[in-house]
């Protein structure tokens, strides 16, 4: 097994902020907008360097989506940033009609996704956003796993022609992917080659899956470990090849089972090569207040639960 070195905990939203600042300097078409969450979205550097291309529209997310569509029609590349719940469920119809159906080049930067938002509780902890966004025709859904990957995904989102949903989180998490690795939209990242069980992980669960893999390997279980940083378009070839090889699949994500990556992979495998699966995700319930790590453990989203799932076939 390769060595994965945590270079120090960093929040993925800061990876977005760093990527956005780079884009601000390199691409005059990039515009950033937020609905009163500039600081939380780490947009300060962009806003300070490019005040003419930054809009804090206030607490009015629907209008922000529409304005972004108008800017995109005119040729700009708007990144709109707010908490993931307000970036999706609150404005689903605006994204559906003004962005996806209208094919406007809008990038949705969604922070504080999932249960690791923590203490604010269930009103703010979206666990449905991946499902909502991947249902929309033409939407690309990215869920990077650490600071470096989020920074790279931000650059890739700007280069992609079309709507992108970029999901990231609030808490500091291990930063372990290579600093200068380009992000390739639509490509699964094969971390470990193995033959006994496939583990597909996305977002914050990738680090947990790495810890689980180390433990499983120590117990003599060979793990095929894949980071699904692009949830849509899914790298179906990589998913099918891995499932054919191992015959057992675990999917780990910080999301509800309903609508999540697990369901997406299940649909692909059911048609191509039916494979027994386990889902490390949340089943049909809201979250609650608590510390991120505490919640991840309580809701079954950590390495221990991935190990348990991998050994349960």
């Amino acid at each position, binding site marked *: 097994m390769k060595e994965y070195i945590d270079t120090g905990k960093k929040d993925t939203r800061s990876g977005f902020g760093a990527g956005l600042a780079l884009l601000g300097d390199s691409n005059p078409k990039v515009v950033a907008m937020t609905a009163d969450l500039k600081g939380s979205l780490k947009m300060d550097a962009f806003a300070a360097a490019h005040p003419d291309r930054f809009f804090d529209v206030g607490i009015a997310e629907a209008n922000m989506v529409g304005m972004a569509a108008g800017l*995109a029609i*005119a040729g700009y590349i708007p990144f709109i940033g707010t908490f993931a719940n307000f970036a999706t469920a609150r404005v689903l119809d*605006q994204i559906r*009609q003004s962005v996806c159906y209208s094919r406007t080049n809008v990038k949705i930067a969604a922070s504080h996704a999932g249960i690791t938002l923590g203490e604010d509780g269930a009103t703010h902890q979206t666990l449905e956003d991946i499902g909502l966004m991947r249902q929309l025709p033409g939407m690309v859904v990215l869920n990077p796993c650490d600071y470096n990957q989020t920074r790279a995904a931000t650059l890739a989102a700007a280069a992609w022609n079309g709507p992108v949903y970029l999901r990231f989180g609030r808490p500091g998490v291990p930063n372990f992917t290579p600093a200068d690795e380009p992000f390739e939209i639509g490509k699964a990242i094969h971390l470990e080659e193995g033959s006994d069980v496939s583990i597909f992980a996305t977002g914050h669960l990738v680090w947990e899956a790495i810890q689980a893999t180390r433990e499983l390997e120590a117990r003599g279980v060979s793990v095929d470990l894949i980071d699904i940083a692009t949830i849509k378009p899914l790298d179906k070839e990589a998913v099918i090849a891995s499932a054919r090889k191992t015959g057992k699949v675990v999917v780990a994500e910080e999301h509800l089972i309903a609508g999540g990556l697990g369901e997406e992979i299940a649909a692909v495998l059911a048609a191509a090569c039916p494979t027994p699966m386990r889902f490390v995700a949340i089943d049909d319930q809201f979250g609650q207040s608590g510390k991120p790590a505490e919640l991840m453990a309580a809701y079954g989203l950590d390495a221990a639960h991935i190990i348990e799932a991998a050994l349960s076939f």
Partner: protein
Amino acid sequence: MEYTLEQIASQVRRDIVRMVTAAASGHPGGSMSATDVLTYLFFKEMNVTPENWRRDGEGLDQFFLSAGHISPVLYSLLARRGYFPVDELATFRRYGSRLQGHPSVDKNLPGVNQAAGSLGQGLSVALGAAVAKRMKGDPHTVYVLIGDGESEEGQIWEAAMAAAHYKVDNLIAMTDWNHQQIDGRVEDVAGLGDLRSKWEAFGWTVLEGDGHDFTDIERVFKEARSRSRLGSPVMILWHTEMGHGVDFMAGTCKWHGKNPSVEQCAEAMKQLEETMGDFAL
């Protein structure tokens, strides 16, 4: 030959009624209340032509229809202005047509900038387009039409606040104030109250005009242009009548989203002069 605005509007209303009759569905009422204002906009006001139109609007005036259900008037005007063949109007709402029930960019119909249908979104989109023009130094104007019933949507007022806050003064919004919505009179369903004062309180320059009198329409558009670029967005409240032009369709919500029968269509045709030649059915 050159047609007068009255002649064009008469033909557009014929097109609207014939389109929804042929499709056995669609929204004639609001299409007919907005006909005169949009006829002036497309034939006199904007510098856009079928030849120079581009979706990004660069170097051009730009129009967004927010009340997407009145697609018949938009399609008729685009066809009559020369964006696509007039006979294509016969495909309205049919399978495979570029003339979707509500406007779409999905099938690349020339002249359509943005999908609309789910209400309340177009003012925000137009605002974004106007901001983009300002950022680019493009001196042209963005126009958008919303419905009075549509103004019950909260997003309209989010956009209203934002436009004034950003002093977007190259934006001319218009309300088709026909006082009708699907379920009845707007004031009976969910009253808008003093619409002029509301827009003024939101920081807009508000003008009013008779949306069925071309002399007044010209006056108000000229005034709107002269009062734009002064630090505030402009709202024109057009006093109109749903179903205007056909006596049994006028002034009632009954024809908001309902097609006439073939017999009713024939009756309507007697009241609307054929000026530019009907599209073939």
